[in-house]
């Protein structure tokens, strides 16, 4: 290295800016473009598959499967129990508690509640209406009297999310009741599209009970084969 090591360094050459001042036609390698596109595609697919739905409280990207377990086939619908739990934690657990037991004297329990399980005079349409439009005033649940207000969620939750959270509530903590379908929620939503006020117990009791047709709830653990949710047969009362 030694001879000329220093003098050559100090010799002035053409200025860099001057050399790059003119735009020249430079061949762009097709392979580079292809490589970039493959990278972008792969990265996008990875992000889509591992985003956990871009939820703030999903820490484990594997917990929510968006792409379905099957290979090649049509994507399985998201498990309503998983989606429902997520919606419940975010929306309902503040009052009704993660345990579904509510708070004595303030927020009624969901576990074993006749409202949730559509027993007695209560119908599936009533519980859907409460979630969509809210509830206020005195209410009796499992023989206990409560008097509080529940916010309407119809403007915030999609039909599928209402269906999922109700399906979750009706099949968690030992509860057992048929799943609520998105179509059923849509049906009830359209029936009371004009409603602005929360429901009261008396009002609901005056509406005839309508049941969603029995649909087996896919088990939370086992990935299920793709199945299309059957449309509800239920027609508005009368």
């Amino acid at each position, binding site marked *: *290295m*030694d001879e*000329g*090591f*220093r*003098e*050559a*360094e*100090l010799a*002035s*050459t*053409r*200025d*860099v*800016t*001057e*050399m*790059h*001042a003119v*735009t*020249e036609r*430079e061949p*762009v390698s097709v392979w*580079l473009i292809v*490589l*970039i596109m493959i*990278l*972008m595609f*792969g*990265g*996008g697919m*990875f*992000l889509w598959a*591992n*985003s*956990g*739905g*871009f*939820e*703030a*409280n*999903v*820490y*484990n*990207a594997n917990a929510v499967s968006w792409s379905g377990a099957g290979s090649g086939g049509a994507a399985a619908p998201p498990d309503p129990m998983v989606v429902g739990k997520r919606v419940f934690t975010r929306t309902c657990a503040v009052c009704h508690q993660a345990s579904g037991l509510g708070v004595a004297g303030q927020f009624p329990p969901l576990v074993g509640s006749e409202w949730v399980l559509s027993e007695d005079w209560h119908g599936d349409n009533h519980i859907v209406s409460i979630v969509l439009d809210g509830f206020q005033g005195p209410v009796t649940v499992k023989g206990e009297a409560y008097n509080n207000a529940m916010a309407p969620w119809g403007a915030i939750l999609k039909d599928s999310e209402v269906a999922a959270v109700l399906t979750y509530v009706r099949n968690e903590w030992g509860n057992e009741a048929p799943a609520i379908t998105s179509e059923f929620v849509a049906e009830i939503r359209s029936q009371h599209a004009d409603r602005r006020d929360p429901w009261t117990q008396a009002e609901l009791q005056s509406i005839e009970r309508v049941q969603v047709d029995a649909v087996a709830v896919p088990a939370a653990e086992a990935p299920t084969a793709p199945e299309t949710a059957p449309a509800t047969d239920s027609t508005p009362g009368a």
Partner: protein
Amino acid sequence: MTTFPTPSQEKDVDASVRLPVMIFFGCAASWLALGTFLGALAAIKLVWPGFLDGFGFLTYGRIAPAAVNALVYGWASSAGLGIALWLLARLGRTPLRYAVLPVAAAICWNFGVFLGVCAILAGYSRGIFLLEFPGFISAILFGSYLFVAVWGIVLFRNRSPGPVFASSWYLLAALLWFPWMYFSANALLIWYPVSGSAQAPIAAWFAGGMMALWLTPIALASALYLIPQILGRRLVSYNLSVLGFWSFAIFAGWSGTALLIGGPVPAWMASAGIVASIFLCVPVLVTSINLLGTMSGSFGALQWSPSLRFTVTGAFAFLIAYVGGALLALPSASANFFFSDVFIGQGLLLLIGFVSMCFFGAIYYIVPRLLGRPWCCDGLIALHFWLFLIGGSLAWLCLIFGGLLQGYALNDPGVRFSSSVGYVAPFRLVTALSLIVLFVGSKCFSALLFLSIFRALEETKSPSQAVTV
């Protein structure tokens, strides 16, 4: 019509930035020596925990962060600021006015780093990576930075008419990103700390950003300038550098959270970090084509130009480090190797292999022009280069291979934890020796720099000797 500079114009420009740039370089060289010394000491303590044991200020947990902070804020940031000032003046063909303010800021910055390193050793560390300095010291650093950066931006604004070269884009971006990044991180983690649950992503973003958004753009600006300037040749694919710059700007900021996969950040944040790390391969490939492609056929020039030799080594390290970073960001790799020595190796490759080598290249180019005299001892330059190349690559290889063993051992619950320490012990021993080699190399560098400064000072005192260029 654009006019291009004459040598005499260039001399005026150089003279105007001489004092602040030389102060930055001088301090930087001293910090490099201190940082590698503390790093070597820390590495020795990992092998012999009883070595200089039982003193608070010499405990591993204080020496290691002190070394990293001395290297990042003392060496790399000081040198980077000096290089940025010189490049902006040179590329803008405009002299620096009121140099006294950047001179004062340079002194304040280095005084702040000195206080900060002392504070870490004295036990006032804040315990967040690269934010260990106590709050008032980061305020000093931030204030002095603003003075330098404002002068850099003024240089850019007052540039002579004409096209803006790619190096200026990177410098402008780095000068604007750093204060925003440093202020946000200090405000949210040190001055008025947010809830602990929000700190992990901010800290990871900042630690990644210090490399990707601050030191990397300056090092790239210097390499993109030096290689065509020294060879007197146009970059092979200059038009692609637009793609390189923008893809880098968009993805670099997101890459920091990749390693927090499975950690205390929502899944999407870690995934975004992983994807950004992979996407960073695009600007890295494009820039490497420009840097190394321009070199092709001219590797003989490495014989006579030390600047080129350091810069090209840095460019290779850049390619390896960022492609390696993309591979290490993949979940299957980070699951095994995050928390292992592999990541120290990755940091060493970025900081020593890439950034420091590019900065050495720039300093070897700039200082003779500022002092008006060539480097004094070729032998010392060669020694410096080989010590850094050998010490750096040996340390890197040992950290990577030792870290691979350590990572597999850590992730295998059937292997006792102490075995993971035992497996890497021989690798850590060689790493410690390599860091001593790096320390000797940085002593060569600072000796060379100060020798040149003293000789230049002597010449100006005795006007009988004519200053020759």
